């Protein structure tokens, strides 16, 4: 019987199957949880705002809770006040008058989508009392100087 060469390479220990399986299980559980959360709409309160239509629909249950109200600023409705502005935000099925106190952002104006942070004064109040306006700018980029951009069909945009 020969003595094994002490410097001979030894075979590595067998791969730890158990820890590998455990890793796999952890991954599957994590992925499953996220899919479950998404599919069940449990993350729906991650919405940053409620549209005018949604707020009007849930007006009764909303009471005077704080909400972020999103809608288009109706043209000709803006009335600047000492602190902020009074205006009307419109959705596709209705509109809500807003009294806002707090300097509006630079881009605030007619036909601009905005998010107004605030609440109704009471459960039955018609006017929404806002404390802050956020301008929700669109993803469109159109040149301000119309002559500089021409659409493929020749029309000037």
């Amino acid at each position, binding site marked *: 019987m020969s003595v094994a060469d002490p410097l001979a390479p030894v075979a590595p220990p067998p791969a730890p199957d158990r820890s590998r399986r455990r890793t796999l299980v952890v*991954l599957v559980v994590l992925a499953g949880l996220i899919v479950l959360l998404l599919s069940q709409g449990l*993350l729906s309160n*991650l919405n940053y705002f*409620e549209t005018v239509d949604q707020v009007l629909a849930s007006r009764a249950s909303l009471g005077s809770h704080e909400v972020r109200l999103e809608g288009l600023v109706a043209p000709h409705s803006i009335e600047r006040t000492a602190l902020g502005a009074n205006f009307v935000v419109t959705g596709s099925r209705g509109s809500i008058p807003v009294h806002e106190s707090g300097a509006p952002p*630079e881009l605030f104006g007619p036909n601009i989508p905005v998010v107004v942070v605030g609440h109704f004064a009471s459960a039955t109040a018609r006017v929404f009392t806002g404390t802050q306006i956020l*301008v*929700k700018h669109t993803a469109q*980029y159109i040149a301000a100087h119309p002559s500089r951009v*021409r659409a493929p069909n020749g029309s000037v945009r």
Partner: protein
Amino acid sequence: MHRTLARLLGPATLALLALTVWLGLVVTPPDRVQGNLARLVYVHPAVAWVALYLSFGTATIASALYLWRRTRSVTLDRVAVSAMEVSLVFIVLTLVTGSIWGRPTWGVWWAWDARLTSTAILGVLAAGYLALRRANDDPQRRATRSAVFALVAAINVPIIHFSVLWWKTLHQGATVFTANHTLKIHGLMAWTLLLSFVAFSLAYLWLLRARYRLEVARARRESDDLTAALAARVLEGRP
């Protein structure tokens, strides 16, 4: 050939970035609504593209290839850590440029909407990855654990991408990758936007290469140090 290309990477990046600056600040027209603020569209989306898709994507794929079929390739591990470090830099740049854009347009520096929050979480995950690497001394264990971590963290990337569709966000929707393939940006502005993507992608490759070489140099120094220490120990033992 490969050497020449690599050497040209830096100058090419700088040239394209300079061209983007010139087109973005001088040649392109201001936007109808946002005016000159819209010029940030030539920086912020391209930086976010590198952060989320290019660099985090590279780190994810390298990590997956490291684990899959047990390649245990040192190269892939180095690519993963290099890409993740670049990703963290670009995620921070994304948050900073977005914040700078948000203040004058939205009216706030920050909003806890789904897009912004999920991006911030990705930044924390990238930092966590780098911290995890420091918590392990054994190279193979470190590589395996961080690779698994990278794969788990990567779940957040599609969440960020679709966040503007799944939830109502203050952040705008897609300009280029829209659902019905209509480009919402016009003429020269669109070309400059495209150029900014190419320029920042090149900048990413440049940084990744530099960071990878640093990782290789670091490993070589460590092994040299070890050899020297062993040699010293052998000499000590001699009569």
